[in-house]
């Protein structure tokens, strides 16, 4: 088959599945819905693999599919750019999506919205593929918003739950704040480059290195700094960087498969992908890179802290995702774009694994998500246990596992970077290693080891954490976890198979990938690094002597000991002496309150931004429209006409004697004037 048709097939196959499952969701049987969508995504995966091979053989592609719009001198097209960055993302997206599709058969089997769910996740796959395959900013924005829409639909999948429909609106609006910056960035690109085509923009980029624009007052700003920061604000929304991170933890209201697919493995990494794609622009502004670095470092460390105190199994993983996205952003800021993409890829596998494993636990626990009610599950759910352990070890950076190679490379790259803020970032990512290990294994120990705390009747307190089902027709006991005496059970094969298939790359992908992706010519001509200004990657390459050597060397390095310490401390705290964390919580109650309120971001947003907007709206409406415009001007002028009329009307009584009397008075006045004239 001709390659260009194959490119088209990749996004269109999932779209076809989504349309069949979505438009006919009320008439087709369940098996058809999942067969057609899984077939679509599997087709996309296979085609992506073929395209990957083709790109490895040196056949990249950049061309339009159709002209969307022309206006003035501008032309907007829908088109594809197929290179190694695109194919990496295509493989990650289609593979994780395929796993999630299969998993969903088991996870959603009792849900009345089964067909609709499959339609949404296939639609998401289509949107995400359009995003990564785009060859221009316009289509990127299309995909960007489309994945936001599907995320909105999926977070609010259980549309009768007040928390879910609040969370989905919040997610959409916070993302829109990011998009607000993003579209201004795109506008700046169009205004100065005259095109939105990646290749043309990147070709011209160096000409604009020292261009300035006048934004405020008399000060001139570097065009590239303003543009890149605007673009990055978009990435902050989608990739949930502080302070636009607030939507991601709430998005856990959606069903677990989408938390894995959208809110861990794929959509939230769109911002990382975008910045890596724009590397020729970001390289021109050290200020913007520094901004990226600091935001990423703050996210990596401070979101990790929040993971420590969460009790909802999904929220622990969610904060872990936030923190890891911070790591990727740090890598971008350090000009180590390829490392960011590498971590994106390894993270996609082990984080999808952790989420799906969490979902498996939730099924086993009959939709109880509170880790305080679990414990000792390894006996009952062996496959989930082992795969979770693999995922957790990969996440904390155990040498030779996937997460180790990518995370250690990030730490090294930051250490070698000299741009402003890199000192703080180095501290943040280093401290983050301990924090990550601590919260990951706190959850791991509380869920799979120790005392069996489930089935103990007293479930009252976790009602607000209750699980994924809310459809009364289905069954009531879904909300309440395990009944007293009931034991958890391992999940069916459709659930455990994806866990196993994801565990494999979580182990090996780092070892295989690091050589070519970071230090080979995999990203040649795709990711651009100004080695003179930002030499971190070059130095990193000098230190690299193969994946095995790197793993062995790490056993004596600081991050390894920090991670080990994290595991040991969490074991000691939660397995040996559970009284210690409780005592710490009491002793440092201020910090605990701060963490429990998530640094008050939500409260401030609700009070100041949401409340402020409503107050402003009321003031404009009641004060401006109703009181001034309608009250004074419109009805006021009507009243004025009425008043004048009511006064003048008094003179028109219709009685002859009134007129006669007035006439006589008039004659008298005139006579008096005439007499006095003399």
């Amino acid at each position, binding site marked *: 088959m001709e390659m260009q048709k194959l490119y088209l097939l990749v996004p269109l196959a999932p779209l076809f599945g989504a349309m069949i499952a979505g438009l006919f969701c009320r008439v087709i049987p369940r098996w058809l819905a999942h067969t057609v969508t899984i077939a679509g995504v599997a087709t996309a995966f296979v085609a992506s693999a073929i395209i990957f091979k083709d790109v490895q053989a040196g056949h990249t592609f950049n061309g339009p599919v159709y002209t969307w*719009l022309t*206006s003035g001198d501008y032309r907007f097209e829908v088109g594809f750019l197929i290179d190694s960055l695109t194919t990496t993302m295509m493989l990650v997206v289609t593979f994780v999506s395929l796993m999630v599709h299969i998993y969903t058969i088991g996870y959603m089997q009792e849900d009345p919205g089964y067909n609709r769910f499959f339609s949404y996740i296939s639609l998401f796959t289509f949107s995400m593929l359009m995003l990564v395959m785009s060859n221009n900013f316009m289509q990127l924005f299309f995909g960007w918003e489309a994945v936001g829409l599907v995320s909105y639909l999926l977070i609010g999948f259980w549309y009768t739950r007040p928390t879910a429909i609040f969370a989905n609106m919040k997610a959409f609006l916070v993302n829109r704040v990011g998009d607000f910056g993003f579209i201004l960035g795109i506008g700046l690109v169009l205004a100065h480059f005259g095109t939105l085509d990646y290749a043309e923009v990147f070709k011209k980029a160096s000409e604009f290195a020292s261009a300035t624009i006048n934004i405020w007052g008399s000060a001139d700003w570097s065009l590239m700094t303003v543009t890149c920061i605007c673009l990055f604000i978009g990435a902050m929304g989608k990739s949930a960087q502080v302070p636009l991170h607030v939507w991601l933890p709430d998005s856990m209201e959606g069903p677990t498969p989408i938390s894995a697919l959208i809110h861990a493995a794929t959509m939230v990494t769109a911002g990382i992908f975008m910045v890596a794609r724009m590397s020729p622009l970001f390289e021109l502004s050290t200020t913007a890179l520094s901004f990226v670095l600091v935001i990423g470092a703050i996210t990596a460390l401070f979101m990790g802290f929040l993971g420590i105190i969460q009790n909802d199994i999904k929220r622990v993983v969610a904060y872990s995702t936030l923190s890891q996205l911070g790591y990727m952003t740090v890598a971008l800021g350090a000009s180590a774009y390829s490392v960011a993409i590498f971590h994106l890829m390894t993270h996609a596998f082990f984080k999808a694994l952790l989420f799906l494993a969490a979902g498996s636990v939730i099924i086993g626990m009959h939709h109880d998500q509170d880790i305080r009610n679990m414990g000792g599950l390894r006996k009952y759910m062996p496959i989930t246990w082992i795969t979770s352990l693999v995922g957790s070890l990969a996440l904390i950076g155990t040498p030779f596992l996937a997460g180790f190679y990518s995370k250690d490379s990030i730490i090294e790259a930051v250490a070698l970077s000299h741009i402003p803020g890199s000192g703080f970032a180095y501290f943040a990512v280093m401290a983050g290693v301990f924090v990550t290990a601590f919260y990951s294994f706190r959850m791991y120990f509380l869920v799979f080891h120790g005392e069996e705390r489930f089935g103990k009747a007293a479930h009252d307190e976790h009602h607000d954490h209750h699980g994924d089902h809310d459809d009364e027709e289905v069954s009531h006991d879904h909300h309440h976890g395990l009944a007293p005496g009931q034991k958890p059970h391992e999940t069916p094969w459709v659930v455990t198979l994806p866990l196993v298939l994801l565990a494999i790359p979580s182990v090996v992908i780092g070892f295989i990938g690091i050589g070519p992706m970071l230090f080979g010519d995999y990203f040649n001509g795709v990711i651009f690094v100004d080695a003179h200004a930002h030499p971190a990657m070059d130095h990193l390459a000098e230190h690299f002597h193969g994946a095995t050597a790197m793993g062995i060397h790490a056993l004596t390095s600081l991050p390894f000991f920090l991670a080990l310490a994290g595991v040991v401390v969490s074991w000691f705290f939660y397995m040996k002496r559970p009284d210690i964390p409780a005592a710490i919580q009491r002793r440092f109650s201020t910090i605990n309150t701060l963490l429990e309120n998530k640094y008050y971001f939500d409260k401030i947003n609700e009070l100041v931004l949401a409340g402020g907007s409503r107050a402003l709206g009321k003031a404009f409406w009641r004060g401006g429209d109703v009181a001034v415009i309608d009250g004074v001007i419109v009805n006021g002028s009507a009243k004025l006409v009425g008043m004048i009329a009511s006064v003048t009307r008094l003179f028109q009584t219709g009685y002859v004697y009134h007129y006669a009397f007035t006439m006589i008075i008039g004659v008298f006045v005139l006579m008096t004037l005439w007499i006095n004239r003399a």
Partner: protein
Amino acid sequence: MSTYPLLSLAIWIPIVAGLVVLATGSDRNAPLARMLALFGSIAAFLVTIPLWTGFDIANGGMQFVELRNWIPRFNINYHLGVDGISMLFVVLNAFITIIVVAAGWEVIQEKVAQYNAAFLIMSGLMNGIFTSLDGILFYVFFEASLIPLYLIIGVWGGPNRVYAAFKFFLYTLFGSLLFLLALMYLFINSGGSFSILEWHKLPIALGAQIWLFLAFLIAFAVKVPMWPVHTWLPDAHVEAPTGGSIVLAAIALKLGAYGFLRFSLPIAPDASHELSGLVVALSLIAVVYIGFVALVQADMKKLVAYSSIAHMGFVTLGFFMFSAMGIEGALVQMVSHGFVSGAMFFCIGVMYDRVHSRQISDYGGVVNKMPKFAALFMLFTMANAGLPATSGFVGEFMVILGAVKFNFWVAFAAASSMVIGAAYSLWMYKRVIFGDVANHHVEELSDINKREFAILGVLAIATLWMGLYPQPFTEVMHASVNDLLRHVAISKIQ
């Protein structure tokens, strides 16, 4: 090029059809009146299709021109024509008329013939506005179109309909008087011509241009409506029946915006440049201020009415950036707004017909009872919030991108609608559609029937088509918009 007088047909078929419908008289003949109205509107739509398919996109001038003497004593002519700016609105108007007739099919049970006749006649009159090339002819259509809308609100409207109808009528009449004065001035100064195209070439001193511009501005700003002369619109929408709201939002608001392109910019180009700051400022107030006002509305129709004003702010903003992206983006926004706001008002009408309330607080959990409706309403809500792949995105995207080049902070203010627009649209959707069934009225809801589904389906296709492939819509505009821009760039001061 067709040899038929297509533009005359587009004007007079609906008017004649309206008179025929009116002749069916009392409500005993209601089914006949409905069928006649439907056929009339479809026939009128069919004659507009060759306007698009036969349109010469390379020609920026007037096409399908018709010219006859009307009142020779004052040199007033029956002069019609369309260019890339006006053609799409004739088609849109004819399209929306079918929607409106179908929208009132079961809902309107009283004075059926008169109701349908009013819409058909108005449709013809509005086609007259979009195609007139003679000042007096334009003015006659412009004023005459007020009467049917006034009647629609005043007769078939809600409880406060008389206040709303009067407010609407007086507001727009006030603007029209200044417009008439401007026409008289131009007639005298051009040596006795009412030809709009000749006025375009007429040299005028800057002082006079500014007065003309202000007269036009007031006339058109009321129609658009622009802040601060917008307060008639929410009242008119709230009181109007569903069909009235659809026509008002989809077509009537476009008349004022169209006036800017046909009169203000080409006749007073220097004044347009001089006063563009004022219009841009008013447009941004419409986008931001009105956006916040929309956020706190408790009445769905008022909310969508305010959101219409905000969307029209993009239109006037686009015009006065004097760039192809700006003007074409604004025109796209006008067409898109026709689909989206029409659909939004229809959706609200669907719920109103069942529950008889427009208050957001009277709803909640509608999706449980009306899933098909909820899905379509979601599409239009997202289009209203400017989501890509819907038509609502295209115009906003073009205007914002054009604005970045014009002035960064103007773009900044305009782009804030990305957040505010999403906030008021989605918040309303959430409160009305999502959640548990809120009360027994919602419990009794039945999903949309075939007629309602067909109407929303057609509008959905239009919305998606324009979002996914807007090129056919913009390619007809290029030549005319470029001609206009070249024309506006040349000073008329001598």
